[in-house]
C-alpha cells in the first residue's frame, strides 16, 4: 500500500532544494521556531505552500452524497481515499467523487472507525489517480505549520479547492486542533504538513472560529487493515452501526423438491433485482451454505445487516453461477 515513487519525485525534489544540507529533508526548520523570526521564515512557509499545493489540490476530492457533500483525499494510485466516518456514514456505500478539474468518478466506502471519525473509500473505476503521501512516521508536532484543503460548502469548479493556513494548536491521541478555519463541506478533507504529506482528516469545528478539529493519521494507521477489509470499527458517535436483521434482499422463494429454493418473486428496485436475480432462478447456496427451506434461508438473512455482502450460488438454465450483492435496508 505504498504510494509509487513516480508521483513522489516532484515534491521530494522540492524539499531537497529547500532544506539546508544535512538537515532532515522532511521537516522544515521553521516548524522548530516558536514563531517565524522574520521575512525569510515567512517566505519559507509560502514557498512550501506554493510548491506542494498543486499536487495536494489534485488529490483532494469532493464526496457528493446527493443531499450535501464532504471532502476526501486520494492516497494511492489505484484510488484509495481517506475521509471522515460521518461523511461515508457506513460501509459499502456508493457515491460519486469529484476532482478539482470537475472529473466525476464512482467510489464506494470501505471500513470506518465510528468512535474517532476515520473512514476509507475506494474509487471503483479503472484508472491511475492523482494522490498524496501519508505521513506514516506520524512526524507532525504541536506548533507545526499546516494547511487544510477542502471543497468548502460543496463543489465549485470556478473557485476550486479552498486552502487555509494554520498551526497545530492542540495535539491529543485521537484528535488534533489547528487554526485552519473549516466549514461544512470540508469534512473528510485533508490536513497537510508543509512538505505536502497528509497528517490528518477534517472532522468537526467548535462555535469559536479558531477551533477546528482533525483526526490525526496515526488513528487511521492504527485501524488501517480493518478499514481496508471494510470493517465497521468502534461504536458511535460518528457513524451508526447497521443493525442485524435489517438486511433486505427482496426475493420470494418456494422450496424445490430436488434441493435449493425456486425464486418466484423479485421485488422491484430491490437489491436482488439490481444484482440481476430473475424469477425462475434456483438459489442453491448462500455464502457457501446449502439452502434447504425458506425458514433456514430467512434465518441466515436475519444474521445480516444492511450493506452486508452475500454470495448467492444459483442455477440458471441448467448452469450454476455465483452472484455477489450487497443487501439493502429493510
Amino acid at each position, binding site marked *: 500500500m505504498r504510494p509509487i515513487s513516480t508521483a513522489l519525485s516532484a515534491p521530494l525534489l522540492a524539499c531537497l532544494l529547500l532544506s539546508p544540507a544535512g*538537515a532532515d529533508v522532511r521537516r522544515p*526548520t521553521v516548524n*522548530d521556531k*516558536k*514563531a*517565524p*523570526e*522574520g*521575512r525569510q*521564515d*515567512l*517566505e519559507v*512557509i*509560502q514557498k512550501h*505552500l*506554493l510548491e506542494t*499545493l498543486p499536487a495536494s*489540490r489534485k488529490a483532494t476530492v469532493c464526496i457528493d452524497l446527493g443531499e450535501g457533500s464532504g471532502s476526501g483525499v486520494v492516497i494511492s494510485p489505484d484510488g484509495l481515499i481517506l475521509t471522515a466516518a460521518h461523511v461515508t456514514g457506513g460501509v459499502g456505500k456508493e457515491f460519486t467523487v469529484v476532482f478539482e478539474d470537475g472529473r466525476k468518478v464512482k467510489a464506494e466506502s470501505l471500513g470506518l472507525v465510528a468512535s474517532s471519525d476515520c473512514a476509507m473509500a475506494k474509487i471503483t473505476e479503472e484508472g491511475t489517480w492523482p494522490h498524496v503521501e501519508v505521513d506514516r512516521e506520524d512526524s507532525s508536532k*504541536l*506548533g507545526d505549520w499546516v*494547511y487544510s484543503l477542502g471543497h*468548502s*460548502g460543496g463543489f465549485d469548479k*470556478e*473557485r*476550486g*479547492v*479552498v*486552502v*487555509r*493556513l*494554520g*498551526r*497545530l*494548536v*492542540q*495535539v*491529543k*491521541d485521537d484528535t488534533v486542533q489547528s*487554526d*485552519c*478555519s*473549516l*466549514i*461544512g*463541506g*470540508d469534512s473528510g478533507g485533508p490536513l497537510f504538513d508543509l512538505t505536502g504529506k497528509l497528517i490528518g482528516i477534517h472532522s468537526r*469545528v467548535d*462555535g469559536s*472560529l*479558531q477551533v477546528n478539529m482533525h483526526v490525526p493519521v496515526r488513528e487511521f494507521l492504527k485501524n488501517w487493515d480493518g478499514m481496508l477489509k471494510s470493517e465497521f470499527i468502534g461504536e458511535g458517535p460518528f457513524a451508526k452501526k447497521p443493525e442485524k436483521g435489517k438486511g433486505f434482499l427482496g426475493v420470494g422463494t418456494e422450496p424445490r423438491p430436488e434441493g435449493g429454493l425456486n425464486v418466484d418473486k423479485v421485488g422491484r428496485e430491490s437489491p436482488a433485482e439490481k444484482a440481476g436475480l430473475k424469477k425462475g432462478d434456483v438459489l442453491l447456496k448462500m455464502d457457501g451454505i446449502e439452502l434447504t427451506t425458506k425458514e433456514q434461508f430467512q434465518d441466515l438473512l436475519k444474521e445480516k445487516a444492511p450493506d452486508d455482502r452475500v454470495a448467492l450460488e444459483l442455477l440458471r438454465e441448467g448452469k450454476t453461477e455465483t452472484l455477489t450483492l450487497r443487501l439493502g435496508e429493510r
Partner: protein
Amino acid sequence: MNAKRFLPAALLLATAVPLPSAQTLEATYRMTGPAVHASFESVRQVLQSSSAVIQRGRKEIVYGTVVSPDGHILTKASELGDIEGLSVTVGDKTYEAPVKLAEDPAWDVALLKIEASGLVPVSLDSDAAEPERGVWVVANGATSKTRRRSQIGIIAATAREIEPAGGAVLGVTIEEKSKKLMITEVHEKSGAEAAGVEVGDRILAAAGQTVEDREALGKIVGKLRVGEDLDLKVERKGKPIDLKVRLAGRADLFGEEMTRNDMMSGRVSKRRSGFPRVIQHDVIGNAATMGGPLLDLDGRCLGMNIARATRCETFAIPAAELRGLAERMIAQSAGR
C-alpha cells in the same frame, strides 16, 4: 543550530516521560497571535498609514483604503449607514465630517473624502498578476485609537465572479392577468421604490422590449447584474412613463435563510454576494473589518476587503479592478 542541540533532549523526553495527554500551543504563537504577527511589522506599518478606521462615536463601523494623498478613501458602502456623525482615523489623526462623493452599487464601494493632505495612498499595481493560492496576505485586524493591528492569512481560492445570491431583482411584486403585468407591491429600499415605481403601474416594456408575462421580464432581468440599471416603461393612469430602476440582489433586499454553515460563521457581511470579481483569502474577520486594504509581504495592495462571506471565506476586490474603480469614482466626483 538550535534544533541540533535540542534534538537529544527531545528524544530523551519522548522515551523517558510519557507525553502529556494534551499539548496546547499558547495563544501568542497561533495565527491570530502577536508573536506570529511580529514578523509582519513592516506590512502593519502600511496599514498604519494607508488604512482608515471609520467610526460612529466610539464604535468601529468599517475600515477604509486610502487612495489619494488629499483624502480620498474607498470603503464598503453597505456598512456605512448614515454618513452624518461618522469620523475617519488615518494614522493617529482623526478627521470629522467625511463627505460621501460617490457610490458604486455593483461593487458595494463608497468613495469618501476627508479634509487631509499628505496621506500615503496604497500602492496599487494594476499590472501585477493576481496572487495565487498560498501567497501571504495581511489585512486590518482590531485597532486602537492610535495603532492599527494586522491579521494574517493566505490567498485561498481562484479569483472569480460571485453571483448575487438569489439573483438580481427590481424589488416589486407583480400580478399577471390577461397579458398584463400589474405591480401590486413596491418593496421598501428597493431600486423600484427609488425610481418611483408605484402600485398599480402596468409594466409595458423592459430594456426596450415589450413584455407581457413574467417569463419575458424574468429573462431580461436575469441577464443583468446587481447595481445595473434597467429601463422600464410603465403605464400609469393611461399614460406611459419611462423609469430607470437599479437592480438589487434578492438576498440583500429580502434577507436570506440562515444555513448551517452561516450558523458557524459568526458576524458575516450583510452584502456578501454579487461582485463582478473577487480574490478569496482566509484572514479571520467580521462584517466590521471589511473595507481595508489587502496587502502582500512587500506592503503592496492586492485589493480591498469587500465581504466576510463565511467562517472560512473573505472576499477582496482585486487590485486592477480597485484601481479602475478609484480612478473612475474620483474623476466622476471631480466632474460634478
